[in-house]
């Protein structure tokens, strides 16, 4: 029980740290930190699928991209739309899409499921490329960020720091909810299903429905991240819905580690910084990405977070095995 209080303290400290960042960081770095938080949510949503439910999808970008495009399209076509309404529209549409696609694809398992998700991602990409009149095709869509309507007052979030605060609070809270989710009945059900699906069935759980609910939920969260991605860059291109965007999240989650909740957040952090600096010095970024993948799979399958946990346990004399049950994610 002591652990839980610790987790809440960590969350509060992180938010406080985040709150002082605009005073410390330069504008460019603050912009990057905003991006990191958005991608952290995307990575967390993906890890609920991969790490917690054991479902390997190569199509998570279809939800991220859909959320991004729906936000852009609705801001362009609905005059006077407020920021939060655009986000909610994205959320609703990605939820419905996730439900329909999940219903179709979840009848398959393992490698076959992975293949199908990739094919559907390709379908979304093809549609986004061809449907020029709506998505802008290869040119993408530019938007200007709408104001926040708080009911009693409108708030401008056009500056880098004000938008950063919005992201810190809204996206940060979404990440915290995802963390809380892993402790709720549904979150536990998903984890238990990965452990022993047959037994869950015999204990009265409808495992097919559970998987569909989780798939829909993670799709919606990815869509939410996508919507904020559009608002952040005030631009969306077809790369947001491409397989490269799936690769990106896969790499973040894998580098960070699937076995802890916070691993993917760390992964998003490392990935965005790494990508920003590497693409400055080399155009062989995909080669490094491939090498990192192979290296991680072969030598660090648990990711950075697993390494950190191991080091911490080693220092504490291997007593702390309880606090971070690797992969079994009981209390992470």
């Amino acid at each position, binding site marked *: 029980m002591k652990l839980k209080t610790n987790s809440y303290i960590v969350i509060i400290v992180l938010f406080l740290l985040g709150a002082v960042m605009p005073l410390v960081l330069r504008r460019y770095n603050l912009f990057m930190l905003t991006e990191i938080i958005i991608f952290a949510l995307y990575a967390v949503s993906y890890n609920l699928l991969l790490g917690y439910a054991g479902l390997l999808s190569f199509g998570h970008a279809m939800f991220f991209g859909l959320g991004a495009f729906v936000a852009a399209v609705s801001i362009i076509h609905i005059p006077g739309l407020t920021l939060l309404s655009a986000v909610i529209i994205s959320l609703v549409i990605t939820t419905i899409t996730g439900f329909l696609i999940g219903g179709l694809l979840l009848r398959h398992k393992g490698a076959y499921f992975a293949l199908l998700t990739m094919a559907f991602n390709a379908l979304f990409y093809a549609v986004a490329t061809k449907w020029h009149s709506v998505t802008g095709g290869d040119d993408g869509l530019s938007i200007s960020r709408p104001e926040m309507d708080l009911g009693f007052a409108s708030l401008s979030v056009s500056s880098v720091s004000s938008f950063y605060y919005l992201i810190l609070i809204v996206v940060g809270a979404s990440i915290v909810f995802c963390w809380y989710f892993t402790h709720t009945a549904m979150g536990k059900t998903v984890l238990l299903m990965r452990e*022993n699906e047959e*037994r869950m*069935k*015999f204990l009265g*759980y409808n495992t097919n429905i559970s998987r569909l609910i989780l798939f829909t939920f993670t799709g919606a969260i990815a869509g939410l991240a996508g919507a904020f991605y559009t608002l952040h860059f005030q631009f969306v291109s077809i790369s947001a819905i491409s397989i490269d965007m799936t690769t990106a999240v896969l790499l973040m989650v894998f580098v960070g580690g699937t076995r802890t909740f916070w691993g993917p957040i760390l992964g998003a952090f490392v990935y965005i910084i790494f990508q920003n600096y590497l693409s400055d010095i080399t155009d062989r970024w995909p080669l490094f990405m491939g090498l990192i993948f192979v290296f991680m799979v072969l030598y660090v399958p648990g990711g950075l977070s697993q390494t950190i946990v191991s080091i911490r346990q080693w220092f504490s004399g291997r007593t702390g095995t309880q606090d971070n049950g690797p992969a*079994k994610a009981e209390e992470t």
Partner: protein
Amino acid sequence: MSDYLHIKDIHKDFSGLQVLTGVDFKVVEKERHAVIGPNGAGKTTLFNIISGKFKASSGAILFKGEDLSGKPPHMLNRYGLSRSFQITNVFSELSVFENILTGVRSRYGLRYNFFKRPDHNKDFREKTEAIIEEVGLKDVGDLPASALSYGQQRALEIGITLSTEPELILLDEPTAGMTREETGQAISLIDRVTADRTLIIIEHDMDVVFSLADTISVLHYGKILASDTPDEIRNDQRVKDAYLGEE
């Protein structure tokens, strides 16, 4: 007045191979009913059909007058059926407490909730603790299931089976692989926890069968050879022949 449980003319073939050829017997409420039979008689298949793992090729499973055949396992569980597994089938990385809690919260409908934390519910915690105590795992409640001894894992297996508060319990060779001493403890455990419930048990060990069962059904070549009290079964010539024929 319909029967409590009527296994009615169950047939099962696996791509042409006839395993069950018209199994038919009745189970009375609150009795302990053992199904025995030589190896390959189809006991496990029958058990898997009753518990919903397999679908019967034909026949019916009438539970209080309602046909349950073909219903998926999670629905059967909600009718009050619960089964154990011959090969220990627990959540091995999770604690004993979590293992039991999973069934307890399912019984009370807390399965897919996005907001409630099952471990925050005092009622569920108490019910879980009670079951853990009942199966004698109080001292190891916080350990992961994989850290338990074999006998303790078998006790946990029964604990999980009990966790959804079933009225009809199906036990699949609960003492398989146990030592004499462990078997003795298991018998008294089963005896205790199934009081006031209906039990169907598949068992190889005749000591277990005769010390627990009120009624015994003998399965032979995919059919019920006899279904009667232990004393009658003990003296039944057909049953003797069936078992002798095996050797």
